């Protein structure tokens, strides 16, 4: 039974008066005479228009319910997609691999120059390069130059900005950000793609660094 049919049944029940002499539908359930049967037919035919309208209302209600369910489903789906996720990108992955070996301008003994990968470790220790420059400053300068020479960042280009972060993570899971500033360009909020690398240092400790492009 649909919604319209249900409303119609309620109305019929209302029409039945407790006093059988005053009821509009007296004898409706068991019409004994020809007149009674004719009366019943006339009531049914006069109410068929109303019933049609009510069933249409029922159909509309069903359609509205289905539409609301669909909208809720669509809303949930869209809100899921809107959660900002960073997609793994082979481009940034290859960049991180390639930059690890890059020879920096920092040397601790005057003749062996550190790679960027080693420089992360010395930056975390707070080492000073020959000449007195902080290893973190050299690391920051090299990273900034490498990233900004590799991509053309502008609002019009495909790559609008970047964010580079590096953390020292102890065995217990405690995280400390490395002393690297200004490794960010543009406002990265959507279409994030990137990758990260983990460099083990000491017993269970590690340095985690990531590059995100947008």
């Amino acid at each position, binding site marked *: 039974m649909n919604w319209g049919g249900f409303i119609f049944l309620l109305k019929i029940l209302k029409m039945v008066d407790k006093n059988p002499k005053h009821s509009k539908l007296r004898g409706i359930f068991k019409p004994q005479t020809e007149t009674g049967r004719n009366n019943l037919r006339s009531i049914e035919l006069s109410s068929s228009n109303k019933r049609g309208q009510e069933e249409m209302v029922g159909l509309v209600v069903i359609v509205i319910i289905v539409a609301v369910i669909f909208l809720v489903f669509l809303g949930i789906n869209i809100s899921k997609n809107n959660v900002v996720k960073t997609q793994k990108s082979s481009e940034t992955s290859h960049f991180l*691999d*390639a930059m690890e070996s890059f020879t920096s301008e920092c040397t601790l003994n005057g003749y062996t120059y550190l790679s960027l990968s080693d420089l992360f470790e010395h930056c975390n220790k707070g080492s000073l390069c020959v000449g007195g420059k902080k290893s973190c400053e050299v690391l920051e300068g090299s990273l900034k*130059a*490498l990233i900004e020479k590799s991509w053309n960042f502008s609002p019009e280009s495909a790559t609008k900005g970047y964010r580079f972060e590096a953390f020292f993570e102890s065995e217990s899971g405690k995280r400390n950000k490395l002393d690297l500033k200004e490794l960010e360009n543009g406002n990265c909020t959507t279409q994030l793609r990137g990758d990260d690398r983990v460099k083990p240092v000491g017993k269970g400790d590690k340095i985690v660094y990531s590059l995100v492009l947008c």
Partner: protein
Amino acid sequence: MQNSYVNYSKLGQLKIQQMAFMLVAVFILFSMVGLVYVSITSSQIDSETKALRNQEAVESVKKLSGTAEFAFKSGGDCSSCIDLDKTLMLKERSQYKNFWNFDYLMIEKVYPNETERECTKTNYPECNKITIIDSNDKKIVTKTTFVTLARWDPNLGASGDFRYELGRIHISAKNIENG
């Protein structure tokens, strides 16, 4: 009696018709919803396919840096680095023009890069490009990936050392373009 029988039959037909219309309407509604869902899903699959093909092509470009012709084996632990000195020598050899079946193959130094010009024996390493294959076809589409370039620097350290720089490898070939 006959009249009322006809009326009853009409009412029944009307109800059947009404039900049929309702079923058709509900069916059309669900079909439309289904169509919208399928079109959204298929467009997502399309873009994912393109991204995967591109990634596969880039990975195949990256593989080239590990081949004997380019791989840096002289020192250190950089097996995926490109030996820039070896690449310059490779450029001079005409046998390698048709060796890989590429339309375009170029190694570019990204950083540090002070001068933008093609490398020759006379200006090396004060240059940034080594073009090994160039078919001069202007319509080619290249696939690019980052690599580490290694070269001997006599001025590095006390008595010279290998210097590692950031570079890119550009390749164009029909089988790579098709992913």
